[in-house]
Each structure stands twice: as C-alpha cells, then as structure tokens.
C-alpha cells in the first residue's frame, strides 16, 4: 500500500524515512502541536515550497536542465489568482478561472521557451531563462495599472478560508478550527498530493528517460528517444507544478507582489533548497524545503545572539549578523555542490 503510494520509491534509509516522517507529521500536526500564527505560516510555506522545489528538482535533478525561470511560473500562478480575485471578487469561480488561465499561460510559455532554446545547448537554456525571467519580473513591476507594480496586490479570499470563520463552535483539542486552519490543511494536502504525483512521474518510464538524458543525452538520443521532446515536456510539467505552488501561496498570503513570487532571491532560495536537500531525489525537496525555511525563520535569531556574543572581535559580528544568514547558506551550497552533490538525501541513502 505504502509502496504503491510512493510509486515504489521508498526512502530506502531508516534515517531518511524518519526525517521525512518527522517533517510530514510535523506539518500535519502544526495547528495542534505548535499553535500560533507564526508557526502555521512557516508550515504553510514549507508545504508550498515542497511542491515548488520538487518541481524544480524534476528539471535540475532528474533531467539535468538548469532553469532560472522557475519563479516566473510561480509568479504566473500567484498573479493569475490575485488578478482574477481583484477583478471578480473573492469567489471560488474567480480562483478557478485564475488558476486555469495561469496554468494555460505557464504551459504555453514553457513550451515556447523549451522548443526554442532546449534544442541547442543546456547552457543556453540557463541564460535564456534568466533573461526571460528578469524581463518578466520587470514587466510585472512596470505594468502597475494591472499588477499593482512594486506594491503588488492585496485581496480578500472566500470567507470560509479566513481567520474569522469558525468550523465548529467549540475548540477541538483546545484549538479553534478557523478558516485559516482549513486553508492550511487544504494547502498541506494539495502539496502532499502533488508531491506523490511528481514521485509517480519520476518513477514512470517517462522519468527513467529523463534520467537517461541527464546521464548521457547523446546516448539517449541514439537509443531512439527524442531528447528535445522529453526535455520540453519535463520543463512544461515543472512549470505547471510551479504554477500550482504559486496559486497556493497567493491564497495563503492574500497578497501577491514581485518580492514574494518573482524576485531572483526566491530563485536562489529554490536552488539552495534543491542542492542542500538533494538533487535527483524527490525526498530532497521535503528535507531541503523544511530545513531551509526553518533556518530562514529561526536561524536568524540564533545568529543575532552569536553576533552579540562576539561583539568586540573585528569582522566576526558583521559575518554573524542576522541578515548575513544567506552568506553561510551560500558557503554551504558551494561546498555541497563539490562534496555532496546528492545533498542530504544522497548522504543518508548511502
């Protein structure tokens, strides 16, 4: 049963299995075990980023393609829902229409970029996507009549999903089940379903071909697989999953702006999560997203203490300043590309 659910791709390591179980259970029980808006927010972000990072791993880890346009698709999803709600009011139809339109746009765009630049060299794709994504980001912040520019869009969502809504009169296990809790579970369950779907994809014959292309595209082509087609399909699929993640974050934040969805720093975050978690394994997404977002939210406090403690020593306080956490993750990133290219998951599976 479990084997079928995980598409035969079990964690294959006790430590990894335990880690994944802790993260998933931790997320599932957050509203009850760690009450409070902050922890719920962290848990929701982790759920969304699991989908986003796993979909990026589909490209980077499984197919061996580097794309910098992943945040663009994330942004298309978020803006699709945000614009639809801003225009049509907070209804389910608006969310549905926004989501469908966003998915269609993402698929088309990914198809065009893929057919256009995946033919030549993998390195081309990286540069072309970087250029396209930055143009898209600037476009989104320039078309302020449509997108709200740098300020972004703030909107309401259906009232069933807002903190004001109570599902039951009485608290359950001492916790009020609000609309926010419902929304969290909606996001969490969707994220898990999408994750299992991606696990299914990479363990299908199609996924095997992708891995073959990653290992040796010339050989895969020689065996009769049209690598361009497979690569393009992989990039379209990844774009669709990223769009779905964008839709979820738009609903959760009730705000969509360039900084939360399109900025290059989010792209960097995704890269860090994939590489630190483990390229070429879907479980890497769960581990990477959980560790990174926890670090993002709680490491800074730790560094602040360290920075205060080292006051007086030259340079160290600046290096340990709480805004410099990315420095250390960057160093970790470079080191893990050299020494642990398969990330935490690869280490644990050994």
């Amino acid at each position: 049963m479990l084997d079928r659910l995980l598409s035969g791709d079990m964690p294959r390591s006790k430590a990894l299995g335990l880690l994944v179980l802790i993260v998933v259970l931790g997320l599932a029980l957050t509203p009850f075990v760690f009450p409070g808006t902050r922890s719920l927010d962290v848990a929701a972000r982790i759920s969304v980023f699991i989908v986003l990072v796993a979909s990026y791993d589909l490209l980077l880890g499984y197919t061996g393609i580097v794309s910098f346009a992943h945040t663009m698709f994330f942004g298309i999803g978020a803006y699709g829902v945000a614009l639809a709600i801003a225009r049509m009011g907070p209804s389910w139809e608006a969310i549905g229409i926004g989501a469908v339109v966003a998915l269609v746009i993402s698929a088309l765009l990914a198809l065009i970029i893929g057919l256009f630049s995946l033919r030549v060299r993998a390195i081309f794709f990286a540069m072309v996507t970087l250029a396209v994504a930055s143009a898209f980001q600037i476009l989104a912040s320039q078309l302020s009549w449509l997108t709200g520019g740098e300020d972004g869009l703030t909107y309401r969502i259906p009232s069933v999903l807002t903190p004001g809504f109570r599902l039951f009169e009485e608290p359950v296990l001492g916790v009020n089940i609000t609309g926010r809790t419902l929304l969290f579970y909606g996001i969490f369950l969707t994220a898990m379903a999408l994750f299992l779907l991606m696990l299914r994809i990479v363990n299908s014959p199609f996924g095997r071909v992708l891995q073959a292309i990653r290992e040796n595209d010339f050989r895969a082509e020689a065996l009769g697989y049209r690598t361009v087609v497979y690569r393009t399909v992989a990039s379209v699929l990844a774009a669709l999953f990223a769009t779905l993640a964008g839709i979820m974050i738009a609903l959760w934040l009730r705000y969509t702006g360039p900084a939360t969805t399109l900025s290059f720093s989010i792209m960097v975050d995704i890269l860090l999560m994939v590489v630190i978690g483990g390229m070429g394994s879907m479980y890497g997404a769960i581990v990477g997203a959980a560790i990174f977002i926890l670090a993002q939210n709680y490491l800074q406090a730790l560094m602040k203490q360290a920075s205060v403690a080292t006051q007086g020593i030259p340079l160290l306080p600046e290096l340990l300043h709480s805004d410099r956490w990315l420095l250390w993750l960057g160093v970790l990133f470079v080191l893990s590309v050299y020494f642990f290219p398969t990330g935490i998951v690869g280490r644990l599976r050994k």
Partner: protein
Amino acid sequence: MTTADPTLAAKKPIWGDDPWPMVVLAAIAFLPLLLINPKTWLVLTVAGLAMGMMIFIMASGLTLVFGLMGVINFGHGAFISLGAFLGATVLLRMTGWTGVDSIPLNLVAVLPAIVFAVLVTGALGWAFERVIIRPVYDNHLKQILVTIGGIIVAEQMIHVVWGPDQIALPRPLGFKGAVGFGEIVFEKYRLLACVLGLAVFAGLHFMLNRTKLGLLIRAGVENGQMVEALGYRIRLLFVLVFVAGSALAGLGGVMWGLYQEIITAGMGMEVMVLVFIVIIIGGLGSVGGCFVGAILVGLVANYTGFLVPKLALASNIGLMVVILMWRPQGLFPVIRQ
C-alpha cells in the same frame, strides 16, 4: 600568397567572409531614422553606443572564457559589483579631486579608482578560478550551480564589508552635464564611455590578432587539444584570460556605477542579464560577435526606449529571439573542433 592561406584570416575585417551581421547592424542603426528626427536619432545613437560599449567591456571576458574552455561563469556579475564598490571606495575618498569642474583633475581621481578596481578584481578572479571553477571543468551543470553559489557569497561579502545599503556614487563634476555641437547635445559621460569602450575593443582586437598570445588564444578557442599537443600550456592561457576577463568586468563595474550614479550589491546580477543576451546574440566565444551584439542591444534599448518606452525592456528579449531564430548559434558562430 593565395587567399586560402589561413594566416591571412587575421588580416580580414572582423566580420570575415560574412557580411550579414553588419547588414543587420546597419539596418537596426539606420532604419529608426524613418521614425525619429535625425538630431534625436544622433543623440539616441550615442547613448546606445555608450551603453553597448559598457556592456561589451563587461561581456568580453565572459565570452572568451567560454570560448577557450567551455566554462560559463554565472558569477561574473560578482566582479562587476565588486569593481563598482572598489572604485567607489577610492572615489569617495577623493572628493577634493572629483568635486572640481576640471576634467584633468577628475581623471586624476578616476584613474586610480579604475586601476585599483581592475587590479583587485583581477586578483579575485584568479582566486575565483582556483577555488570555485577549477574543480568543475567539463561539467556545465555544476559550473552553473557553483558559480551561482559564488555570486551569492560574493554579494553577501559586499554587504559585510560595505554595509547593507546602496551607495550613491556621484560622477566627477567634470563628467557631468553635456557638450553641444550646434543644436545637438551629448552627455559628456556617454562620449567618454564610447571612447573607453572603443579603446578596449581596439586593444583586445590588436592583442588577439597581432600578438603571439592572441594567436594562441584564438587557436585555443578553435582547438584546445591541438594547442596543448604543440606544447603550450592551455591551462595557463585560460587562467590569464579568466583574470583579464574579471579585471574587465571590474572596469565595466566602475563605469556602470558612475553611469547609474548608484551602486548596489545586486547590480552585477542585474547587468548580467544584458551581458548574457549580448554573448548569446554574438555567438558564445566570439569577441567580435560580442562587440556587435553589445552595440545592437544598446541601440535597440535606446530606440525602443524613445519610441515605445513600455517595450524597452522586452525589446532585448525580442532582439535575442529574432536573432536566434535566424542563427541559432548567434551572429558569429564559433567553429570548434
């Protein structure tokens, strides 16, 4: 000597046997004359050339590095930012020299800033090659990841050293304002950027086509293994080119910083988008292509910025798309064996 003699290749014009890229360049430069009045056109063209030259300075090293070893350095932008910050450190200490409305005195301030930036970014380029790039030859995926990691760390280090805020970098007074030729007025700094860019291009062109070193580099781009077999250490050549490329990025960073008059740690990555478009358009590995590509990008950005401001940003992507549809390997495809 017959025309088939390969040693003659150096004596040909930079576009070789292929006139089409130049036709495209001429068309893009002169067709807007139908829509814009000639005086405005001249001003826009100078602005476009200035922008193109600065991008060329930053991009030339990157394209050569790729041509020689097939290494793509996504961390190149770090040297642009670093150059700007290093230059600013010197310039902001010399306000006595920069605050005077005299070009010679300003140059006394700007030259040390440039030299300092170029030397330090060159040295850092050497370290970057050693630490970051050397372990990941022949693996594009890792190169991209590791160099992106490098730029993350470099940007953060800039924050550590220079603080988290953007720094205002006012142009020396002598370079501010404009000079007029009759009714046509050019910004002084743009003219300076054009001159400097042309000088760098001329220097590179001379070095590549008239010196032994350049001969080896060109040979290395075409067939690295053969150069090695002939007893030259291509690794050394590569390190040299990498250091020079980083130093040029530093120079470009100072110029871009003075052009924008504001510098941030992320500026390098922002410019890198244009740099990538330029080297893709030009053909990866080709310095001449990089030069033409940079001018094209600068011109198109300025013309569309004037005609349809909303489209200015999309115009470069559009240009890239059109050129790649025509020539998937760029304007000047580099033939490698």
